[in-house]
């Protein structure tokens, strides 16, 4: 497969006063992949993401998104991306269908709410308020709002945090479907098992710097080659497998 970069970040730096949140970050995201940004809290993942999303000013560096520079063409970028923020709320007192209408208006396009909700299996919640949804439903709805403008790239900031194992798997399937439909996905997560099964490539960020970019498999192979051994031999299944097995693999709405 030809690897065509859809996002290019070069020497990105972001300082808040004396504090350097992002020191020197460079990476490329290829078209049609699920790209994971991994790293401890405070490593600069969200800041990096928000700068690419044109929500934050950078201190220096160069960022090209789908051929447009964040410096000169922020509006063109906004039209081509979908953004899910960590912990963002939605306009109060509106139901899901009305929220989709609102976002359609903000993007200046016409979308049938039911069609969008159908993509994330929420048609039966069309008249419900965002607050009344379960954790998994909230994240699915957030993803629906990122898809309204048929974006080339969507950004998901910790979409599975706080979800139960079923809802998490359910969201993985949704994210894969989105990638398979041709949309590039950039995701952050604290769950390495998630990154391992979901991401095509991952970048580790620590202390505001990229400390490695590769596929999850390559990272693991390299570590094993270096002579790494887990202190305890892994069993053929883990407790999460037990959880899924005992509570059923089907979709669940809690």
């Amino acid at each position: 497969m030809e690897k065509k970069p859809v996002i290019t970040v070069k020497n990105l730096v972001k300082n808040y006063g004396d504090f350097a949140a992002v020191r020197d970050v460079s990476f490329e995201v290829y078209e049609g992949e699920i790209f994971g940004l991994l790293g401890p809290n405070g490593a600069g993942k969200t800041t990096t993401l928000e700068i690419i999303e044109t929500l934050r000013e950078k201190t220096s560096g160069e960022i090209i998104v789908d051929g447009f520079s964040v410096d000169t063409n922020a509006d063109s970028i906004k039209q081509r991306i979908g953004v899910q923020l960590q912990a963002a709320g939605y306009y109060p007192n509106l139901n899901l269908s009305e929220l989709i209408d609102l976002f359609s208006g903000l993007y200046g396009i016409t979308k049938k709410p039911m069609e969008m909700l159908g993509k994330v299996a929420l048609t039966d919640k069309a008249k419900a308020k965002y607050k009344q949804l379960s954790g998994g439903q909230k994240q699915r709805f957030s993803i629906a709002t990122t898809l309204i403008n048929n974006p080339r790239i969507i950004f998901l900031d910790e979409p599975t945090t706080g979800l139960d194992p079923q809802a998490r798997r359910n969201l993985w399937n949704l994210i894969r479907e989105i990638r398979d439909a041709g949309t590039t996905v950039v995701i952050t997560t604290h769950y390495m098992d998630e990154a391992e099964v979901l991401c095509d490539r991952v970048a580790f960020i620590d202390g505001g710097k990229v400390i490695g970019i590769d596929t999850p498999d390559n990272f693991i192979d390299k570590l094993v080659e270096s002579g790494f051994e887990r202190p305890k031999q892994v069993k053929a299944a883990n407790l999460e497998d037990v959880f899924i097995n005992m509570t059923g693999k089907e979709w669940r709405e809690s």
Partner: protein
Amino acid sequence: MRKYSNTRATLAIATASLKSILRSPSAVIFSLAFPLIFILVFGFIGGGGVKVEVGLGKGSDTTNIVYQELKGVNVVKLLPDLSEETLKKNLEKGSLDAVLTISKNPNGKPPYIVDVKYTKASLEKGNILKAVLNNIFYIVNTKGANAPPPVAELREATVHGREYKTIDFILPGQLGFSLLSTGVFGTAFVFLSLRITLVIKRFFATPVKRASIVIGEAIARITFSLIGALFIILVGHFFFGFTLIHGFVTVINMLILSVIGLIVFMGFGFTVSGIAKNESSVPPIANIITLPQFLLSGTFFSIEAFPKWLQPISRALPLTYLNDAMRKVAFEGAGLFDVTHQLLVLAIWGVIIYTVAVKAFKWE
């Protein structure tokens, strides 16, 4: 690719915001229920006018001309069937203003004797009755046979003026206050909560312009307030006789004033949303702005009734001028060009508050 439409984005926000406002109980209560309750209370208190209650003594003759004339006076309310004892007791308490007994004169001339007992407990109304009786006697005595030729003839005329009712004062004040609370509380709460819950940040990830967000919210609030104002005016007019001199034109003028007032008050709302750290700090700050105006801007009492030292403060507040303009337009039938002084003061307030708002307002 089609050109991005800012108008469409603005209208999408306006629609969303209006739906949200209509579903929020506090907005509806503050802007509609609150003013309506005040109007109701004052509407019922103010309706009555003066009534002199007069008890009719036992054995009064009710066929005579004096009685008939008295019955025709609507200031006087005659209460015939009270017992001797009740008459005495109520007269002493002042719940009756006078007791009147009309009897045939056994001596023949004059044919009737009218006996009136006033009470110290209600001297003022007693005096009204006295005047009414004098008037009746003048008519009756000049009409009777063998009456002396009149020395002078009385010609009465009443200029037909407009009756200034309590509702005419109360309603514009309540309308002004409704606009003030929608403008300040509504705007402050919505922008603070959109900021805190990151709704605005999420908006910024779309191509929407900041101006669209502000204008969209303003359109929604103005629409809501206009519906509210219209409702208050119509209820006032049809149920409590609120005076609308030029009818429809007056209503339109009042609505235009409402919009101007609301825009100024929203400036306070933007400022409060910027100063407040969280939702619970909105009410105290907003109350600092609304309460003094509620009390001092002639919402309930004319500011002329305030002590001299307080009046300059009243005359510095924007709501005073909105109330003033509303009353002139509604009751005196003034056009918008007749209230330019009030509009000018509101405009100055607008400039000041929006200068502050631009500095205080926070997007994130």
